[in-house]
């Protein structure tokens, strides 16, 4: 029996396990949307701007580990996805983007709403496809999902010509993947495993780096066991917070630019780094010339292009983290590193003394760390936290200490403001049983504020907390630290976010003092559906510690100590 390209699209997508997708229709995808009505299994979330759809699909993918799907029309609909595609690409998020395209005979003719979407998305997708015939649909969709989720995951775009949506085909059956040049590695080479094992056995001051790849490959438990068995502390990247429980004595928390001092000091003093599924982002390393100078580096990474890109690996184990760890495990005996760990404990004590939460005399003023910490306490570290980008993002990373993987969703590599609200909506669709918080700044929130309507339309139960300091806070902080406090284009004259919430029918609270935090958070938790909390926080506070761009990792700008603060 023949079916239209549009019908084959939806059947193929359902076959891949998709039940929810995000998007906005338009001329070049009307046939696809028409056919979608025949597949009530699919829950379609109508967004207000395609960027929101991209970020929701990404949030969905990161929260579930499954492939997210976003769909938009040709031309401006497609280009509105671009930032979201880039975000997914930078953070290895499996998302399939479907864009409408003009009829195949009009390709390249500047037809209405025509844009070269495969060209535009080429450098920011893992792969992309152009469908010009209904015969290609089943094969393409299957390969797109396979590429998106396998190996190092990433976004895949399918540009789907309108005539191919309408025309009929007999090729409707599930095809086999037929990709001559795509074979993601799984196992690392045996002789390299042995070399890595030698380094691990000889190490006196080892540190494990748990990257996003640990979460993606589902290796969190294995990594924790390995760390416990070998008595090795674990530092996490921004994207992998929760890879091992934050309360675990071996957890060093987040590494890098805004990582805690004791974590970065441990890295700098280590004699072995076992980097698992991470890529040594410049926010992680600081000055490369002085980076972990005494440490041998074992780099376990599925993407060979990451090997020796930033940090030269003494041993590169190209493969899937979970598989490589399983292969490596039998080669490594149990070990103790008591001296090393007690040294780290000393550093940790010193860091804790400088912790703002331990310091008295905040006079009821609202500090973001306090808010995040209070949310952490009442949610017992088990909520799914989604952030936007900026100061609040770093504070959330520092003070919301998740106990399990898939608990912290943020735009890391792209650092894209506006991500928080839509990603939280997507995450809630993936994990309806989890408590989901969107921690956003006043700047980023306004970039995708329109998606409040989507949250209401879907009655999606997320708690939105705006850290409202009337500044583009992180830029302000940089201007304070590095540009002599010459504030350029960072002050925001904001609307009354409470009234915006009310206009949407969203329950809301304004919080001005620290004494009100607890009742506001409880109000949000007890009220079903979306809730918006508007926290008017200290305006000119800085995120500490901070490694200035290009500085040595151990040369942090520290939090002022209690004495210094006086």
């Amino acid at each position: 029996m023949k079916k239209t390209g549009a019908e084959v699209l939806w059947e193929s997508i359902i076959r891949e396990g998709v039940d929810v997708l995000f998007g906005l229709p338009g001329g070049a995808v009307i046939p696809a949307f028409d056919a979608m009505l025949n597949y009530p299994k699919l829950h379609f979330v109508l967004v207000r701007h395609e960027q929101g759809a991209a970020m929701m699909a990404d949030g969905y993918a990161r929260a579930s580990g499954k492939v997210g799907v976003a769909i938009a029309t040709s031309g401006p609909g497609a280009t509105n996805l671009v930032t979201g595609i880039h975000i997914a690409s930078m953070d290895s998020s499996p998302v399939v983007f479907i864009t409408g395209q003009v009829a195949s005979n009009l390709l390249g003719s500047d037809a209405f709403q025509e844009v070269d979407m495969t060209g535009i998305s080429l450098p920011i997708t893992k792969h992309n496809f152009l469908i010009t015939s209904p015969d290609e649909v089943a094969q393409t969709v299957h390969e797109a999902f396979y590429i998106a989720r396998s190996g190092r995951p990433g976004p895949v775009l399918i540009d789907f010509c309108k005539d191919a949506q309408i025309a009929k085909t007999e090729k409707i059956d599930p095809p086999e993947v037929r990709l001559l040049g795509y074979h993601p590695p799984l196992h690392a080479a045996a002789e390299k495993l042995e070399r890595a094992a030698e380094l691990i056995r000889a190490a006196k001051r080892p540190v494990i780096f748990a990257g996003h790849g640990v979460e993606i490959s589902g290796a969190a438990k294995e990594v924790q066991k390995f760390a416990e068995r070998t008595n090795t502390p674990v530092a996490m990247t921004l994207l992998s917070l929760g890879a091992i429980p934050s309360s675990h004595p071996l957890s060093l928390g987040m590494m890098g630019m805004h990582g805690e001092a004791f974590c970065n000091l441990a890295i700098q003093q280590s004699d072995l780094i076992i980097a698992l599924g991470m890529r040594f982002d410049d926010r992680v390393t600081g000055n490369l010339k002085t980076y972990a100078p005494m440490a041998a580096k074992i780099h376990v990474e599925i993407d060979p292009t990451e090997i020796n890109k930033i940090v030269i690996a003494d041993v590169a184990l190209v493969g899937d983290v979970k598989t490589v760890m399983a292969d490596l495990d039998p080669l490594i005996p149990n070990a103790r590193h008591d001296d090393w760990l007690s040294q780290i404990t000393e550093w940790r004590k010193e860091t804790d003394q400088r912790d703002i939460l331990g310091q008295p005399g905040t006079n009821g003023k609202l500090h973001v760390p306090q808010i995040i910490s209070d949310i952490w306490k009442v949610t017992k570290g088990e909520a799914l936290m989604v952030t936007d980008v900026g100061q609040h993002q770093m504070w959330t990373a520092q003070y919301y200490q998740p106990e399990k993987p898939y608990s912290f969703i943020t735009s890391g590599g792209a650092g894209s403001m506006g991500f928080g609200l839509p990603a939280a909506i997507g995450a809630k669709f993936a994990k309806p049983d989890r408590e989901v918080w969107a921690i956003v700044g006043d700047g980023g929130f306004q970039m995708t504020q329109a998606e409040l309507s989507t949250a209401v339309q879907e009655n999606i139960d997320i708690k939105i907390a705006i850290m409202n300091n009337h500044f583009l806070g992180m830029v302000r902080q940089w201007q304070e630290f590095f540009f002599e406090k010459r504030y350029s284009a960072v002050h925001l004259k904001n609307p009354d976010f409470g009234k915006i919430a009310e206009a949407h029918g969203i329950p809301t609270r304004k919080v001005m003092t620290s004494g009100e935090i607890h009742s506001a958070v409880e109000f949000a938790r007890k009220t079903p559906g979306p809730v918006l909390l508007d926290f008017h926080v200290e305006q000119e506070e800085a995120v500490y510690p901070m490694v200035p761009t290009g500085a040595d990792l151990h040369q942090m700008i520290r939090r002022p100590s209690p004495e210094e603060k006086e």
Partner: protein
Amino acid sequence: MQHTLIALVENRPGVLNRVASLFRRRNFNIESLAVGRTDNPEISRMTIVIEGEPVETARIEANLVKLVNIIDVQDVTGQPAIARDLALIKVKAQPSQRAEITALAEIFRARVVDVAPDSLIIEITGTEDKIESLNELLRPFGILEMVRAGQVAMLRGGATGVRHTPGVEARPF
């Protein structure tokens, strides 16, 4: 230094763009590029010559392998390989000069493939140096036009330049 990369790629639209895009993003200039079908009509072979440091070219090579449509890439620089370019050179030639130019061409095992009243077209295959040398010798006569096909390369001996076969696990880095 100059690097020669061989890439086996899927023979389908857009693949050349994907390859070229990697070089463009890194601000690399492609010195020479030759693409054509192999004995398998689904697979094309590219020979890419670039100027760059070994570290940079190693990274490009890894990124090329990562492209979904690229089946394999090998840097054959410094390996025993046959490298050939083909050029057509249209040179000014009055009837009185024809013999001299033809003699020059013969030294280079080049062929005269077109004769007009006041010009000749010479076809030459060989290494870049060889083509460059003939070019220099013909320059005084007046070169009207020149076209090169781009360098193609093949490893000597039994090595094929394909290190992993489709369906088999990728080679370790």
